[in-house]
């Protein structure tokens, strides 16, 4: 009985100090909250994309980037904001789609999309994923332009429609995945 009384008294005295309540109850929760919010999104790299003038083709490119499994796309309003977010690390890398993207492609030119990353291998590796997504788009656009140039379609738009219809029918050269070895952590751990 004495033990319980001593315990109860000690507990009461501890709880009387507000700082103790904070460090015992509030602080751990706060720590979990902030840690979770900072790192809880998982490890998918975040790619900022600036679309200077969103046309149909530029939008399609953004969608293609977003579909890449190793990228999470965030739209950013301006080039300067993209640069500072990449530099500060709140984005892992960035892509700038220039204003004349749609018209230049239709005119048969090569449009240069700028890829922005911090120095280091992580940025260059992410660049591979971006290039791959851009290549998938380029496939359709090249076919559309080629069809128009070879007069197999009346214009770029018609060529693009034709290419989009055919892309599912033409046998593809694909990449097959195989796994070897055991994972360090079971996949159920995420």
């Amino acid at each position, binding site marked *: 009985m004495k033990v319980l009384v001593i315990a109860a008294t000690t507990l009461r005295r501890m709880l009387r100090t507000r*700082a103790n309540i904070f460090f015992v109850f509030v602080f751990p929760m*706060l*720590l979990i909250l*902030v840690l979770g*919010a*900072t*790192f809880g999104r998982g*490890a998918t790299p975040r790619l900022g994309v600036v679309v200077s003038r969103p046309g149909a083709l530029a939008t399609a490119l953004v969608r293609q980037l977003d579909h890449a499994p190793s990228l999470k796309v965030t739209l950013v309003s301006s080039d300067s904001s993209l*640069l*500072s977010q990449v530099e*500060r*690390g709140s984005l892992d890398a*960035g892509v700038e789609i220039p204003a004349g993207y749609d018209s230049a*492609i239709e005119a048969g030119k090569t*449009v*240069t*999309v*700028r*890829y922005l*990353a*911090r*120095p*280091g*291998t*992580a940025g*260059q*590796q992410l*660049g591979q994923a971006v*290039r*791959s997504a*851009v*290549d998938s788009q*380029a*496939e359709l*656009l*090249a*076919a559309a332009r*080629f*069809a128009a*140039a*070879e007069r*197999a379609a009346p214009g770029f738009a018609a060529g693009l429609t*034709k*290419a989009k219809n*055919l892309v599912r*029918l*033409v*046998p*593809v*050269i*694909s*990449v*097959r*995945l*195989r*796994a*070897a*070895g*055991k994972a*360090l952590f079971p996949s159920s751990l995420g």
Partner: protein
Amino acid sequence: MTEQQPAGRPGARPSGSARAALLIAEKDLKARVRDRSALIFGILVPLGLAFIFNLIFAGVSGNSKAISLGVVVADHGQMGQAFTAQVLDPLRHIGIISVRAEPSVAAGRSLAAKGTVSAVIVVPAGFTAAVEAGGPASLTVIESASAPVTGEIARSIAQGYADALNRVRLSVATVASGSAGAGLSPGQLRRIGARAAAATVPVAVSDISAKTKQLDSKSFFAAGMAVFFLFFTVQFGVTSLLEERSEGTLARLLASPIRRGAVLAGKLITSFALGVFSMVVLVIGTSLLFGASWGSPLGVVVLIAAASLSAVGIMALVATFAKSAEQAGNAQAIVAVVLGLLGGTFFPVSLAPGILGKLTFIAPQAWFMRGLGDLRAGSLSVVWTPALALLGFAVVTGAVAMLRLRRLAEV
């Protein structure tokens, strides 16, 4: 408390107030040096923690190493050679990927299973023939289960090559399909294919290298711990006012011909001096002991001075709500811990998406960390924004604290 005698000299005029304040600060500083509390909280603990965090996390937050890839070219046609020449060799030159050729799929697979390589790209036998025949064809990527992320990169490399082939194939198909393409001879198709392969690529990607404004892990933990404990170190000065009141020495101080403002100023100077001193020691200590790089010394000094002022202001304000030194210490600890956590001194909260990434800037610590990060990439002028933000905290909280402290300094 014999040190206060000089301040009590008869005829201490307002012009002597500054001198009185400095004397009070000197007395307090001596007391802090003697009881070693400032030394422990201001220097030893942050130094130790920065060292430990750095040991734990240095490997985690560092840059990833170059990927090592295996490649098996079982195809003897031109496509297999083209893959090595056009895709792998350029990557090898950039230095982000090391490629080792393996004689067989089995050999490659066993390397991937062991984790020696992150992934193996296989160009299977008969690949060229399958591509030229226009049927389905495939490259194989064997990912090492222990390196799923880099396996992804290997897949994008293989996919990039497959996409280039698909591009030509689709271009040929759009021309050859329908009535226009009916009855094209194999020779015509080959010529169309050559023209398609030579056509201008619609989209190219150019690399722009951005600077980094992130602190490396050593500097991050050094700066984080230093500014986190800064808020504890500066407590000593202001809290001693409460101590002096409970010990009865405040009454004696006020009875002497020293202006009340001078007493307060003395306490604030003590806090500021302790803060700046501990920060400077930590900057030098972490630079020498574990190679933290803080950036331009002048910029760092500006940020330290501004951060110390903001810490003094905030901690003084918190102390004014307490009745005893102990109560003040508790409240200050809570505020320092919450602001430190929110301000990203333990981990970079400013990288958090959404509201938290913005909320972090209600803590002066976040501005200090941002200032140091910006300083890493930019010229000295980049410190003015964070420094002004820090001074803003100092002015607002300091002004309110002074108003309240004047009342506190009445016995």
